[in-house]
């Protein structure tokens, strides 16, 4: 039994020392990013002030997709190499991803009303993001649907891998189908096509969101590890 926790124990130590630093940098980046986003950047010539929604909408979308990719990678590791940390990482990340996806949907809707004149359209980009939310919710429910946590982890891992097909669909849906939604202007092969005054806050917020994800992931993984360890101790004590 014990060798299975040797490695996680080390992880727990490293995570504990790293946490305050990552959290601090995240906070600073959020402050600087918000300053640029709200004060030090111009309104868009087309969209006016509503463009400021972009500085949370787009980073949240990136993190939501990155988070799912991370879960899928961890699931593959868990299924192939059966590393116990991979399961914990995957199930710690899922609620965060769901949160980011809700942010994307909400801010997108709030942006859509003034720019498109409607809260919601059933186009490929919006639908695939909604599917992403359901995938997160399914992942979370499946993780907790079994009395044996190991079974929940395995089932959720399979689901995460299957659901990964959705990520490229989200990413490229605007290119494959013409929709109301903006095509990628930043993450393009021929370089970003966006004004630097808007690029700076966007990138700052993007890094801030990513670091926020890392911070919360570390916190949640430590919490999960503590719970797992307590369970194992109870098991030993129960003899």
């Amino acid at each position, binding site marked *: 039994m014990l060798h299975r926790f040797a490695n996680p124990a080390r992880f727990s130590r490293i995570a504990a020392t790293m946490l305050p630093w990552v959290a601090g940098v995240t906070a600073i980046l959020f402050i600087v990013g918000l300053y640029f986003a709200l004060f030090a950047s111009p309104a868009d010539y087309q969209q006016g002030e509503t463009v400021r929604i972009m500085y949370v909408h787009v980073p949240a979308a990136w993190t939501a997709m990155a988070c799912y990719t991370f879960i899928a990678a961890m699931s593959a590791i868990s299924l192939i190499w059966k590393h116990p940390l991979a399961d914990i990482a995957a199930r710690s990340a899922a609620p965060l991803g769901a949160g980011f996806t809700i942010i994307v949907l909400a801010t997108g809707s709030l942006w859509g009303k003034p720019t498109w004149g409607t809260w919601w359209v059933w186009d490929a980009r919006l639908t695939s993001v909604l599917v992403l939310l*359901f995938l997160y919710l*399914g992942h979370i429910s499946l993780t907790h*649907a079994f009395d044996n946590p190991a*079974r929940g982890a395995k*089932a959720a891992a*399979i689901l995460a891998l*299957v659901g990964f*097909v959705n990520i490229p669909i989200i990413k490229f849906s605007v290119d494959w189908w013409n929709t109301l939604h903006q095509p990628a202007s930043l993450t393009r092969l021929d370089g970003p096509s966006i004004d630097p005054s808007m690029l700076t806050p966007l990138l700052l917020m993007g890094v801030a969101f990513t670091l926020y994800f890392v911070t919360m992931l570390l916190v949640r993984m430590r919490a999960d590890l503590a719970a797992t360890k307590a369970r194992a101790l109870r098991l030993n004590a129960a003899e």
Partner: protein
Amino acid sequence: MIGMLLLIRRDLMLAFRGGTDAAMAVVFFILAATLFPFGVGPDPEVLPRIGGGVIWVVALLAAMLSLERMFSADYEDGSLEQFVLSPLPLVLVALAKIIAHWLTTGVLLLVAAPVLAVFYNLPAAAFLPLIVSMLLGTPTLSLIGAIGAALTLGARRSGVLISLLVLPLYIPVLIFGALVVDGALAGRDYGNLLMVLGGFLLLALAAAPWATAAALRQSIE
């Protein structure tokens, strides 16, 4: 291969002798589609307008409802353990169950769809696209559904979970399936929409049996 045929034959026999109740899906399909005019009112303008969509939605629900029983009887009476121990690779077991499921739901839905189309006064131009889109779409439903059914074996509240897992993945099939019918009615070209449905099918065919087999293996403990 022989093992797969055996398994498909057994599932069909069980279905048609009433064990797993295959006809349920079609009956549901027909009854549910018949109920709408009662609820919505038999407005001759509205019905054909929504007909294609209603038929697709109800087909989706019918396929989904039959999922829960796809593996559960075998799970409960210990047959699934025996499948895992049998010489037939579990991927092929999964594929055989999927084929059997499609034969007992998808095919029957396909047969019933034109009848409902008449019932909803769909113009003749919509028949072929409806059937072709269902031919391409319903196997995808069985394939994706199998993953959900296998993942939730032995789970608490498995019925709800299956819906939660499977419906989001069904939505793209529904959207494109309904678009094909709408496109045909509007006189648009729907060839590339069918291509998309075909693409979904190929994707599902490549991934679903493996995922299902993996899920089945972990369901046994």
